[in-house]
């Protein structure tokens, strides 16, 4: 049972910006290593699978396999970066370093801290999206102004998975707990959302289930944008991502209040 008091609506003040700036200052000290980390993993997938499997599968969905997988990697990278930030990094700040405790003794509320962490996770997703986008452009794909739209899309993906991560953060007894989220949520999401192969390849039941996965909707937007065509059903895809983001964020807020405000 969660006491009714924790369900009060989010309290908003502009002081959250100072917490976001705090995280930015830490990140700036480690920015190069952090961006390399953001790029390395998806880049390896893109090159290995793109050129390896691409040799057998010349075209998927009307594009080269490396381009196909590259567009998936943009979304994958935003997803992993924001999840990681909202779980491991936020947990360090909340639990190990007690940074949040210090902040809420100042004239900030826990709601401000949570909002800042959410925005920060989404901001980092934009950074990694931009890094992958740069790689894609260098490899010679995505040469269309529409491609720039993946940056706000990266932010939206970051809001969704950052909020999921904050839910896990609120429940975590320790770092090991986050493995469940990677194994049970993110990995299936990655395999079923059309990153490596089109969703239509799957049995109809699985393909139908994939319609409920936020990453699938992100990829439905990213793939046309990076191949220079306007995506279809933009409102639906954005609405699904945004709805997941808001519901998960409110759940994270309630659970974090219960964890810390006692």
């Amino acid at each position, binding site marked *: 049972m969660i006491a009714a008091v924790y369900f009060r609506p989010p309290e908003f003040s502009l002081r959250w910006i100072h917490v976001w700036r705090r995280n930015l200052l*830490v990140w700036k000290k480690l920015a190069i290593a952090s961006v390399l980390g953001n790029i390395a993993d998806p880049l390896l997938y893109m090159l290995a699978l793109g050129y390896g499997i691409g040799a057998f599968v010349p075209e998927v969905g009307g594009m080269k396999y490396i381009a196909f997988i590259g567009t998936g990697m943009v979304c994958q990278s935003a997803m992993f970066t924001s999840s990681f930030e909202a779980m491991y990094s936020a947990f360090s700040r909340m639990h190990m*370093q*007690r940074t949040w*405790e210090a902040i809420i003794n*100042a004239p900030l*509320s826990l709601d401000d801290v949570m909002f800042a962490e959410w925005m920060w996770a989404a901001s980092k997703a934009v950074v990694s999206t931009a890094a992958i986008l740069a790689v894609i452009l260098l490899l010679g794909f995505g040469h269309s102004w529409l491609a720039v739209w993946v940056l706000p899309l990266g932010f939206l993906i970051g809001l969704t998975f950052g909020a999921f991560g904050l839910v896990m953060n609120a429940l975590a007894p320790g770092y090991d707990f986050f493995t469940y989220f990677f194994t049970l949520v993110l990995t299936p999401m990655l395999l079923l959302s059309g990153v490596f192969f089109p969703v239509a390849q799957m049995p109809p039941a699985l393909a139908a289930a994939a319609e409920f996965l936020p990453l699938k909707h992100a990829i439905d937007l990213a793939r046309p944008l990076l191949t220079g065509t306007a995506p279809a059903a933009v409102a639906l895809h954005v609405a699904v991502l945004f709805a997941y983001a808001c519901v998960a964020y409110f759940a994270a807020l309630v659970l974090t209040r219960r964890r810390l*405000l006692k």
Partner: protein
Amino acid sequence: MMAKGAPPSDDGVVLRVAGLRKSYGDSEVVRGLDFSIRRGECFGLLGPNGAGKTTTLRCCLGLIDPDGGSIELVGLPVPQAARAARVRVGVVPQMDNLDPDFTVTENLVVYGRYFGIPYATLRARIPKLLEFAGLSSKGDVGIRTLSGGMKRRLTLARALVNDPELLILDEPTTGLDPQARHLIWNGLRQLLSQGKTILLTTHFMDEAERLATRLAVIDHGVMIASDTPQALIRAHVEPEVIEVFGDEALAWADAHGRALATRLETAGETAFCYATDPKPLLAALADAPGLRYLHRPANLEDLFIKLTGRELRD
């Protein structure tokens, strides 16, 4: 909302707590607590572990909502106006929570920003804060290289970044060595002499005796005594204490001590003889050369033990 720098209440009360109650499930942790702190005081809140000290502080800061009673912090109602009240309060938490990724100066700058202090004001304040903390030469040093005492002093300096009207310290010297504790105490005395108001929780009685101008002992969520340290000792404890220790101490206490002392308590192998007139006890001890003893005036620890008992609290 009050303007920045406005005086607190007219009557000089910086914190007023009345009828405070807080329960967790079936257990009532704070059960009707009343106290108030006037400007310039150092008020000590004493109590064993689990007495409700930290819960009381969290209520006063508006971090948790009380179940009953009222709180007025720097003239503002809490929790309703807690954010505006916290702008004018400084907090030193029980456990260090400095930002490990930052230098000493960055810690102060970033914390100052949470209060909305303009950078120019912060920059002007920081040298004084560093000097106060004895860290003038350490401004650009990372937190990880500081000793425990330095970290504590920086945490204290950080709590002063907004020039607070009330400084709240939750067990400020727990885990420090004696040298580091004395430095913190010096710092706090310096602040008191400048007219700052302090609320201090501690379970070190020497700390409370040195610093607090007034204190309250709380246990099981209620206040069991409140006054100046000297008045409390006078009111509750016999003026002199003889501690007798060693193998034969308890046997001696049963045979002689109990009859001669005003009150006698034992803990482990030590007999505590509390006396209004210690002469008969000292004479009896002179006839028992095998025993070691310590004759001293009663202190706050005697008071604390008398009021809260000797059993262990976990």
